[in-house]
């Protein structure tokens, strides 16, 4: 039961949120310029790191906003939460 700091609502229990998977994935387009391989990569290829993972979460049972979370997949420590439109500061190896 993670404790997640929604940028708008503050620290709330994980059960109020839904995870949207890996973040910072740009949608390729226009469609006629995208190869089958590129499109498949967009649909299916995802990072599976042992360590820092940047992912999207939405405060589904709260304010309904999407935001980014930098989480360590081993310790589940949340290094930072930041807006959907931002890039995020946390680096791997940060304490």
């Amino acid at each position, binding site marked *: *039961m993670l*404790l997640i700091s929604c940028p708008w609502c503050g620290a709330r229990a994980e059960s109020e949120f839904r995870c949207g998977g890996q973040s910072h994935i740009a949608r390729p387009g226009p*469609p006629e310029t*995208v190869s089958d391989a590129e*499109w498949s990569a967009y*649909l299916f290829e995802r990072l599976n790191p042992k360590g820092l993972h940047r992912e999207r979460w*939405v405060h589904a049972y709260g304010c309904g906003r*999407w935001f980014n979370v930098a989480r360590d997949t081993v310790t*589940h*420590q949340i290094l930072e939460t930041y807006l959907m439109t931002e890039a995020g500061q946390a680096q791997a190896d940060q304490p």
Partner: protein
Amino acid sequence: MSSTPQDQRPAEGALIDRSRPVTFQFEGRTYRGFHGDTLASALLANGVRVLGRSFKYHRPRGLLGVGVEEPNVLVQSGTGARSTPNVRATEAEIFDGLIAQPVNCWPSARFDVLALNGLAAPFLAAGFYYKTFMWPRWMLFEPWIRKAAGLGRAASEADPDRYETRYDHCDVLVIGSGPAGLAAARAAGQGGARVLLVEQDVRPGCSLLGETTLIDGLPASAWAAKVVSELHGLAETRILTRTTAIGYYDHNFVVLAEKVADEALCAKSDTAVRLRLWQVRAKRVVLATGALERPLAFPGNDRPGVMLASAARQYLARYGVLAGRRPLIFTNNDDAYETALRMKEAGADVRAVVDARNAAPADLTASLAQLGIRVISSGEVVSVRGASGVTAAQVRTPDGRRSWIDCDLVAMSGGFNPAVHLFSQSGGKLRFDEALTCFVPDVSVQAERSAGACTGGFSLGEALDQGHVAGLAAAADVGCPSHVSPPAAASHRAYAVQAVWQVQAEGKAFVDFQNDVTADDVRLAHEESFASVEHLKRYTTLGMAPDQGKTSNVNAIGIMAALTGRGVGETGTTTYRPPFTPTPLAAFGGLDRDGLFRPLRTMPCHAEHERLGAHFEDYGGWARPSGYPLPGESRQQTETREARVVREQCGLFEGSPLGKMEVVGPDAGVFLDRIYANTVSTLKPGHVRYGLMLNELGVIIDDGVVVRLAEDRFLVCTTSGGAGRIAAWLEEWLQCEWVDLRVIVAPVTTAWGVLTLTGPRARDVLMRAGADFDVSPEAFPHMSFREGRVGSTEARVLRVSYTGEVSYEINVRASETSKLWASIYEAGQGQGLQPVGIDAWDLLRTEKGYLHVGADTDGTTTPFDVGFGHVLKKKSDFVGRRSLTLPENQRPDRLQLVGFEPRDPQAPLPSGSHVRAPDGRGSMGYVTSSAMSPVLGRTVAIGMLEGGAARHGETVSLVTPTGPQAAKVTAPGAYDLRGERLNG
């Protein structure tokens, strides 16, 4: 034999109240004990020695421990619906009327028929089910083995008791109320921090109960009582007893299970709570969970009367019971000498202390000698006599000589294991301390500190010290620093131990008592290359019983380490998982059961449906009428009648759960064009268009109509099941991908009630109900939208049809839906209006071949598969567009939507009937929706068929419950194919 309780109770007993006798039943016999006794202590006091039978071999067993570590004596507590299996007798508090049975034996623990299993012992070694019972077939033996397996029995009636869940937040959670925990709570709470102290026992104190050692000048148990009363006086400090911390999760989230009322109280009261689950978020945690004693692995160590040395001591201190009159102590450390001293003090004849170490401590040897107790150094117990209770133990010395010593109790100690379960669950890493011969916490991951015996600080002084420091630190961390002085105890001797993982001698030496795993099984696992601890565990089932290896894991690791030549630390432990002790499923269910399990939503006109005798079902979380049966009607007859009424007269259907959202803004049209597979932005105000939404894989995720209300305003309608999901979908795209679009999505599903009037007389009824806008077919054509009043109610009216007849979907403010129902219903009398339920509704759209997303489509269905390729946008991008040109989605032999017309018109073709492929391949399609059509007089069905779009006219064979049925492949839809009735 039942002797009077006093016989075995020479001492006081800190927990029992001799003025309150209790009568209970065990194995059908009545016994007496005292309030405060556990089943274990009371039976021990009554001299009952054989209390159970082991899991596999059905060997007679007695008590090994005194608390949570007990592996042998599990009982079935209570009868009927309240019966609970596998309750540890050491934790079952007795009360008047308690009825308990040992598990795993019949007819009784002393005379167990299944003891014959013992004869099969050679065939029941570790991994036996991979090797024996294989010929002629495992399946022959499996039912018999399954019947013999298992321990207690689950009740077969619903659990009548009440279980609750509470959520809590605190500054400092202290787990355990022994010396370390009490010192921590005291130190943490004084500065005003919000402290929660939890203790699994019936009262705080743990090892201090019944102790006379001085702390701050007071006998230990008095000091404990004083601290408890101080804690009660702190406004922000709470104590929960009978509360076990069962799991440590992320970010200091800890789950507690609190035993509130016992079976007797629950039977008398509806509101009594049996168990309360606490879900606690703590800023800081102090783990003061203590340590569990290890058994020694020697042949015969499972005989009734072989017990942990500290347990024997606790039976005396807590319950005043002598576990044996003539005990023999067998130990590898100093602690067990204390047991010898206490039992001697209470009047026992201590037969000897057998110390496995080369040099027994000189001072202790001397003090025992003064009491006439002999100490045998470098001695090992190699055999125990007495299957129904220890009568003698054989001791071997290094010169090889063996001698039998008469005794009625072997109190053994193999050392202590810090209880690191919660620490490990929190993600913490352990290390093996060679000097202490146990695993201790090493690296923390979460905001917690361990204190006392659970860190390897086994002495009283260490426990008090570490607890105090941890409590102060936690208080400082949360900004409520406290200033209490540390408690002082006389310094104790350092813990000295020498590892003895196994006594090498002939005979069964048990490592896991609960799953009947011996040292030989560990050796077998090693021989068969299951040497890693994870393989060892699963191959032998060691550590997999309800006790999760509390008294077995470390001994097994020690034995395996010796076999592989690796260090114990290098061998490591398996993963510790919650719950720490078995917890009833009902506790996790809490109040979310029966009506509250998945609360049904009711529609605005629920009362009207009830009054009309509707039969309700759960459709996507909504209570909706499947139909309105007339007296004597079968479900099929109701469905047929209502469908016919719609085709011939007029039906009224509530569609309030339909998803609705307003999409507003200058970029609303642009946005919806990207979301829908077809074009929306060209829709004119007042017009309605059917749309398909796809995901990025090109798969249909929802369908519905969209209404243009104004230049920058659309009403998007979704399926009832998609209401919440699609609103979230739209938000996701706006917030994550197209952040610059100026659009607002406002879900309004439950703001609007919807009543659909449908049928050839629908227009007449609408006019009679009173519409203040022109409803003539020219002024209000199919697929258009009007706002105005119906009856006296303001409404948005969509002329859209799910049934294929002229239909008006009338949307009104939810609170006015009942009023609208009344006015329409009244207007409909004389026009043959009847209410229509979902069964008939589904029949009608199946006759038309209309798509039901999720029934006729699945997670692979694309617009081309259902014949909608022609409405897709040609030029601009939309969600899923690129996937539609992937090779997989272009295959001509994909499953495509078709109709099935059975050769025998009455033959039922139920959903799921497969189309048999001619070459014996199996299936080439299946029926997805099906009904018996009253107006066509035959079965109508639609479904999926490989390459179906090109196979109209072909005859296929369907596999149905009534045998193979031939059917012609058609376009989906069998009724009014030109839509004349629809557009009327």
